[in-house]
């Protein structure tokens, strides 16, 4: 892999940029791999990358139905934070956040991680108590968060209306080291680095079946033929239930469409990420200048990656009350992504009833921020065959045991 650098750009500038290599190879699938990962989103690619890098397993295919990074990795609102209430959540999200900090340099691909700070507004006394609780929990977990006064909120976000009248800002939970990253670049960066380590990324290839023998996975059937493997990772947020069915088990997951939109680009006006859970909306400004707005999830199950309008209106109303100057900006585009919702809104990472088959799903609305940590944990789990320390609490068996990791008290609607 030829390194990216300012020097490389300068060199190419004088030869019409003719020397750039492919970011990732486009190989023909082999008949057999040691490991097959289904799904070339951020999670799947990160899993492949860490399998290769941390565990020396390089005989890997990542099989993708469409284009890599085209699922929720390319549809989310790019927020990264780890201020979670439950210790198990905080551990894996903080691992992910920490990896994000050094990811551009590690992958030699600028994923634009920008620790601009994530602010979660408390707009009722109840919510304020909830954030105090998270703040206290974070202090014990070693996750750096602090409580802000309304005045501190205002000084960080001058365009915010903190005096209500309906829901005055009573305070905020602030994670200074949270922020955003360029979502596509995360997928591309992992893809390029994984490909360089020998991982075959097979795009435009749909897995149509999973083969097994004696309770052990033997391979996958695809639109480009059968591929055998010793270990299989299913990492297909939004379609997890479909793949699980192929593997012969069921998941406690509902699939719903989560709504998001962007405004037209304007000059910089907000430098942090703001999440307002009482009124259901969150907002940040991209480097391009668009306000990136996340809303709620549709109240019905479906697989269409389309935006519906009803949540958008609630979200926009709430944000105009919170940021009155945005009323005359225009909505440029709205879309939806299918998120896996588990009973406790926490992910499933680990073994499945099918031997050699592992799954990573159920991230709900919080998948993007966890990509490096999730890939790290699933890679370790697949390499050893037993749940890694970060992954262990998130096993599928917890639903049968009732051992929930419920963030609902802390997370509200938005992750």
């Amino acid at each position, binding site marked *: 892999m030829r390194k*990216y650098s*300012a020097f490389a*750009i300068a060199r190419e*500038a*004088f030869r019409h940029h003719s020397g*750039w*290599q*492919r970011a*990732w*190879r*486009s190989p023909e699938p082999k008949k057999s791999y040691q490991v097959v990962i289904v799904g070339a989103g951020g999670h799947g690619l990160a899993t492949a990358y860490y399998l290769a890098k941390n565990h020396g397993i390089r005989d890997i295919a990542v099989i993708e139905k469409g284009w890599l*990074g*085209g699922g929720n990795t*390319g549809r989310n609102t790019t927020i990264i934070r780890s201020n979670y209430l439950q*210790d198990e959540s905080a551990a894996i999200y903080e691992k992910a956040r920490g990896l994000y900090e050094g990811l551009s340099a590690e992958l*030699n*691909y*600028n994923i*634009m991680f920008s*620790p601009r700070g994530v602010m979660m507004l408390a707009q009722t006394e109840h919510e304020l*108590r*909830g954030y*105090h*609780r998270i703040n*206290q929990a974070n202090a014990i977990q070693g996750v750096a968060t602090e409580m802000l006064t309304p005045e501190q909120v205002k000084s960080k976000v001058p365009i915010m209306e903190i005096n209500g*009248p*309906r*829901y005055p800002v009573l305070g905020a939970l602030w994670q200074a080291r949270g922020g955003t990253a360029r979502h596509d670049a995360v997928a*591309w960066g992992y893809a390029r680095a994984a490909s360089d380590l020998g991982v075959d990324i097979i795009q435009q290839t749909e897995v149509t079946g999973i083969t097994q023998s004696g309770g052990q996975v033997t391979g996958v059937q695809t639109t480009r033929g059968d591929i055998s493997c010793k270990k299989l990772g299913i990492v297909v947020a939004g379609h997890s239930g479909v793949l699980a069915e192929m593997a012969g088990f069921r998941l406690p997951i509902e699939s719903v469409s989560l709504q998001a939109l962007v405004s*037209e*680009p*304007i*000059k*910089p006006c907000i430098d942090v990420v703001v999440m307002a859970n009482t009124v259901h909306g969150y907002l940040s400004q991209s*480097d391009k*200048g668009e306000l990136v707005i996340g809303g709620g999830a549709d109240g019905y199950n479906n697989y269409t990656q*389309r935006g*519906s309008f009803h949540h958008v*209106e609630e979200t*926009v*109303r709430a*944000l*105009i*009350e919170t940021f*009155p*100057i945005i*009323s*005359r*900006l*225009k*909505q*440029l585009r*709205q*879309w939806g992504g299918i998120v896996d919702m588990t009973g406790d809104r926490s992910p499933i990472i680990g073994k499945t009833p099918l031997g050699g088959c592992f799954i990573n799903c159920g991230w709900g609305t919080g998948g993007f921020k966890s990509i490096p940590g999730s890939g790290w944990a699933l890679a370790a789990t697949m390499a050893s065959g037993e749940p890694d320390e970060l992954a262990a609490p998130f096993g599928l068996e*917890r639903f*049968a*045991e*009732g051992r*929930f990791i*419920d963030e609902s008290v802390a997370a509200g609607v938005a992750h």
Partner: protein
Amino acid sequence: MSFRLPNAGCLIDRSNPVSFTFNGKPVQGYKGDTLASALMAADQRMLGRSFKYHRPRGLVASGGEEPNALMNMGEGARFEPNQRATTTEVFDGLTARSQNHWPSLNFDIGALNNRLARFFPAGFYYKTFMKPQWAWKHLFEPIIRNSAGLGQVPTERDVDRYEYFYAYTDILIIGGGVAGLEAALESGRSGAKVLLLEQSPHFGGRFMVDDIEVDGRDGPAHIAHLLAEIAKLPNVTLRARTQGAGVFDHGYALGYERLTDHAPAATPRHRLWRIRAKRIITATGALERTLNFAGNDIPGVMLASAVRDYIRLYGVTSGARTVVVTNNDDAYRTALTLYAAGLEVPAIIDARPNGGGEMSDQARALGIRIETGHGVAKVIGKKHVTAVEVCLQSGTGGAVESIACDCVAISGGFSPVVHLWSHCGGKLNWDEENAMFSPDPSRPPTDQNGEGFVLAAGTASGALGTNACISTAVTAAHQAADEVGRSIKEEAAPRLTQTPDETPMAPIWTMPAQAPYKLRSKTWLDFQNDVKVSDVQLAAREGYESVEHTKRYTTLGMATDQGKLSNINGLAVLAGALDAEIPQVGTTTFRPPYTPISLGSIAGEASGPLFKPTRKTAIDGWHKSHGAIFEPVADWRRAYAYIQAGETTQDAITREILATRGAVGLFDASTLGKIIVKGPDAGKFLDLLYTNMMSTLKPGKCRYGLMCNENGFLMDDGVVARLDEDTFLCHTTTGGSDRIHAHMEEWLQTEWWDLEVFTANLTEQFTQIVVAGPNARKVLEALGGTDVSREALPFMGFIDGKLAGIQARIFRISFSGELSYEIAVPASQGLLLWNLLLQAGADFGIAPYGTEALHVMRGEKGFVVVGDESDGTVTPHDLGMSWAVSKKKEDFIGKRGMQRSFLMAAGRKQLVGLRTLSDTEKLPESAHAVEGGKAIGHVTSTYFSPTLGHPIAMALINGGQSRMGEVLDFPVGSKVHKARVVDLVFYDKEGAQQDV
């Protein structure tokens, strides 16, 4: 130079001048002008700067597809960035400023980027700025952020009003050109309810500018004829200035009406139409494509159709001397129009080896020079066009001639507007002959019944010729009418149209065909975002082969026009680079809205006081006038405490508690949910819903109940009263009333539909007032009318009767631990009863108390509050309320969940009381108990108890019940608070106070 022509311009009123300013400079236009046409008339050719390289930008188009002419519009509270000049009607006093430059439009420091363009190819930022780690956030990103963005940031709150409009229609037609109007007339004749939306202020579309004859009428006359015919049909509604913005599942569509953008200060400004249509006809026309040659972004290079629009509609020309460059016949219309307007056309450069059809003969006959098989090597000019260099189309760009000109009219063919067809899943076909994607009628968006609900008509369906355009509209109208259950009885006579014979277009994706890198790196695809042919080719070479990858890597089509001009050209270039067919490459996804819509319109009326209106009880006004401070609880506001002169909030809370415990208190509990559950199976239903048994409750009695979700976690609590054999009244928490009602209905409708049970939420119908304290009975007796003695109305009973002549239901329930009555009366009588109670209680020391006093008193009693002591992870057992979980019932929601191993395990968090070692030090909110560096629980409620004179707290602690007497550490910040685990009930453990 661009200028106003002495005549022509069917939309402007020359007797009605309009004055406005551009960049502070006064400009005059006419009523009917767009900002774009008026600026063109004033010879203002440069209107902005591009996003990345800050290159000069002028008008390209005449409609919503315009990528360049974006303005900072208006001032102060009516300031709006990124408004398209092409869709802005001028009015007196309009102020417009160009965007994305500093210090001025003419001299922009940012244009330095243009000089360095070779260092900034597509995606350069992914390849650098990686080290040191801090530098991205603190150095590089701020520079990028400040140079990106387009319009300025508004600084004031919007003063305009917006509204929603709900419409139900049989047939929704989007687009008011000839196809839309023909479809409206035809389907209207069936009697179906028809609504037609047109985004511009005028109907007729391209029929107003193209020389077409229908039934012996010219284009404008035919449109006038159609409008007159439609006006006779009361079932057909036409709306101008209303964009069909989006098509969603189930025939839901959005219309965006800009009512007063052309006349500010009138309100509402925008109206968002939320339409349910049985069938939708998209008659949205087609957009012309640009041609890809070097310098095609220089001001003065415009779409040929737009050049024609400006002359015909507004009487302005973008140049005195226009070279027409084309790959199809339509651009000849522009050449003929220019000629007819007395303007010079030094040459028509037709890339097709054999040139065009009938119109090319006309042009030649008029003496216009036509060069076939030629193309443009590059455009000469910096801030506007001065010449074009002509070359052989098949070659590498060697100039054969330079032609001086001040305008270049280009046409790369047309693309049907398929956005609305595609929003909800309609699929496309590649039309080889016209090199365009058009709707595939066999794969339309489907509705809830699996049937197609969108039909495409006119050029939007791919029917580019006039005859086909009209006939597809008529066909679509017939099909839509049929499908909504109307039939068109009389067949309208087919239109007789007169159009010149045309020669097929030739797909030309780069000009010249063999353009070298030097030219390709100066050939723009996306004008706003500065994406060039070389960028797309670079993306393809680097493996960003999916059209979505290319889009995201290069930002092609991500500008405010969402690729209306650039997408097809871009993906053709991508296909070329990949050596693939265009349909294999496919399109990116079309997302709503069609063109951007204001956020204000999405919020609609629901802003300010109408944003989540505050729910108030019947006594709210009294609270307000008696010193109450409020807290929001769900959508309600509740009195938190009543502050008297000289009191702090804490003083008031203390006084209220002592008054209640010592004499009698009065509390407005109206916000508690009140749901009637009625029917022969009501008892059975409630047994399934609550954890405890409700069917055994006797009429006239109350029982406190818990509700869990399927996982066995507490979700709500409240007192259930059995009114009669078939009727229960279920009280819920304030926040729970709507949620629990929906929960009941969900189970009844989806799982237990066989139960004969009906529910009704009566929360707002009743005022509920708590009279609590040792003197409570005396107060009620003073009102008189009902025997409320212990014998007549024992604890956990209720009675219907009159109090001071008001029909009331009196419950003996207590959340304070005192002798307590809750009195429900119709909301209309609530304030009256409140006042009567205050009067009657005056002699007994009555005092109203707020929610905080309520909370402290229930804390003293160890009563839980759902949402404080529970958080969605807590079972009734964890709260020490196993007594409320039936062991007898075969099933209830949560029973199975609660039996899972982890929920049964020892060591779970259990609710306990906490007593700080110091009598003055209250535990902080949400403090965590820490043991060996690990959290073992947290404080759920913490108060200072005025009754007991020391702080109290409740906490969920791992294995709490077995830790009685232990002292735990609660580190908060640098301080470690210490508290002993004690019994939950701090006050009146025996319950002697409440059962008297």
